[in-house]
């Protein structure tokens, strides 16, 4: 009998004995209480979209992040290059060009003299540590995003081919470019919009503002282990 079998048998035995189920506190198995009556698609009309952008901006700002909007790839490029200037940043790591919803952005950064550090973390420990150490001084991480949540100022990123995890994690500044089409009202809308959410990537991360801690005397401090600065650049576009 394996450890698995023994633990599961013990669980079954415990459940069979459970006096507590007689207290009437525990409903039996039934349909999932989540999601009942809330299967609504996010509305696509322009007014709603503008309201969501407004909400998202307010929520992210309250957390110490910053939201920007642009209505064309050219506008995005202007915003991103000026952010690179602001942080006096030369080297950056990023998702691959076709994973960022702004054609020409990486080329524009290159022509501005910014250097994209491409990496593929090796599978051996020594090589791995060396590559990670070489990425450590990089100033900005640039990504796209799967979704954004207006009510909490959250962005969702899915890892995958051309969508590295480190770009939103290692550098002190994270810039995410996301279409407003991907902006939804609340967290459960993300699950609704992506019914097989976890199939989108082996690592899905919901990022709600800059890294923070309040461990020492409840004093809020930003930028502990993750990025100190979070910029979300929203690409507004006509409703589909």
């Amino acid at each position, binding site marked *: 009998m394996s450890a698995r079998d023994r633990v*599961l048998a013990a669980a079954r035995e415990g459940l069979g004995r459970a006096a507590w189920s007689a207290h009437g506190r525990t409903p039996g198995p039934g349909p999932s209480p*989540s999601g009942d009556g809330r299967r609504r698609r996010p509305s696509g009309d322009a007014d709603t979209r503008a309201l969501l952008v407004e909400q998202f901006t307010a929520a992210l700002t309250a957390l110490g992040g910053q939201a920007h909007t642009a209505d064309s790839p050219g506008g995005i490029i202007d915003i991103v290059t000026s952010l690179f200037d602001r942080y006096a940043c030369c080297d950056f790591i990023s998702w691959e060009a076709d994973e960022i919803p702004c054609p020409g952005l990486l080329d524009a950064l290159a022509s501005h003299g910014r250097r994209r550090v491409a990496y593929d973390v090796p599978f051996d420990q020594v090589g791995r540590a060396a590559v990670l150490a070489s990425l450590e001084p990089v100033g900005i991480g640039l990504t796209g995003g799967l979704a954004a949540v207006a009510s909490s100022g959250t962005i969702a990123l899915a890892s995958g081919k051309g969508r590295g995890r480190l770009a939103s994690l290692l550098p002190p500044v994270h810039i995410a470019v996301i279409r407003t089409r991907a902006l939804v009202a609340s967290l459960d809308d993300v699950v609704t919009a992506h019914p097989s959410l976890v199939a989108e990537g082996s690592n899905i991360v919901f*990022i709600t503002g800059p890294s923070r801690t309040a461990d020492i*005397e409840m004093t809020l*401090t930003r930028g*502990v282990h993750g990025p100190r600065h979070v910029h979300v650049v929203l690409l507004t576009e006509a409703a589909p």
Partner: protein
Amino acid sequence: MSSEIATYRHAAAAFHRKVEDALADRRLQDALASTTARLTGSRSAAFAAVPHPERLRDTARAIRARTIARLDHYLARFADEAANAGCHVHWAETAADATGIVTRIAIDCGIRSAVKSKSMVSEEIGLNPALEAAGVRVVETDLGEYVVQIADDRPSHIITPIVHWRRDDVARLFTRTLGACKEEVADVPAMTAFARRRLRAEFLQAGMGISGVNFAVAETGTICLVTNEGNGRLTTTAPRVHVALLGLERIVPSVADLESCLQVLARSATGQALSVYTTLLTGPRRRPGDSRGAESDGPDELHVVIIDNGRTRLLGSDLAEILYCIRCGACLNVCPVYRRIGGHAYGSVYPGPMGSIVTPGLMGLVGSAELAQASSLCGACRDACPVRIDLPGLLLTARHQAAQSRLGPRWVRVGVRVYAWLATRPRLFRLAGRASRRLAVLVARDGWIRRLPGPLRAWTEARDFPAPAAVSFLDAYRRRTRSPGRTSS
């Protein structure tokens, strides 16, 4: 005297001593008062900001209840799906099994140093000493846990581990132990930046990352991890091997269920709508040759250690409802006892009301039966609990179990039996009441009884009793109803 009773007495005496120490510690009192008040306030505000907070709690409770009621089913499903996603799934019946499994993974992978993201279950199983005994250096990376580790202290709160530390204590520690210069400890942001630099170096060279699991999703084999600092993400991204420790009750059936649980967890723990980083991990980094495309980073191996350590026994006990607990810490912050004595006094990894159930539930009653006594049964914990665990009810159950197991002093059992005998005989009861009122006059000072003689003294060591009224309620009631014009119509 049996050894169990000796153990019980020893633990109870140690608990009382630690309570006395905590109450006498002025700095601790100040720190606890301000921290718990802030956490309680931000929790209330966070729940007030959602349209239907009570419905949200109902949903979260229903999810936990439904999961625990079929835990064997969901657990097996999770293990299968996690394995399908490429995880190595391990099962640990005891704490020793769990530490043995992690140590073996470390040795097999040739790991010399590991980084760790905050995990209560790792404290529960005593992972750090086990790994260090095997020659693996373990570095805590949550800022509070890092302080606790280098100071050789213990966490005093499950969410904010260094409630009992002040900024100048941390500054002194960083200066003395880590050689920080004056500028590096000038203020909280400087100290945080100092810790970031130190820990960044650890993250980049560690071979293994160890984390807990906030929730595990049965239908997809996904593990969910929540942190604010980002140490959880680095722990599960930078090192080559990720080991996730899962207390086996932390399962939710589906991703949709997960979302409801995350909302109440963040609001209850820190008053946030959502924690800064909520990570959903489904298998390790995808390697070259994967049909979905190879990834450029992430852990090569993901091990999930499913830990029982008393949980399945708890499942069949009268305390089983505590398995709904999502470890948010809300019951600690509102508890009038925790707010006074802090986490260390409980002498357990899990303090506060939930800890007073979890600890005897997992470790057995003998060493921790006294914890359930440290409650006024005011019910604040039940009101705060995001999954509506009947904590006062469970505390009473734990007390009942302690009484049944005859661990406590004999005179209490005899006393209670005498009281029960008297209380079911009205005439005798009134007589005894009259007698005790007479006696009370002798020991009361200014309307309070502060000290009782003989074995009763133990009671007044921690309590003042209001002196009984000169006239009993029954007598007063009779007099009132007899006097003309005062009868109720």
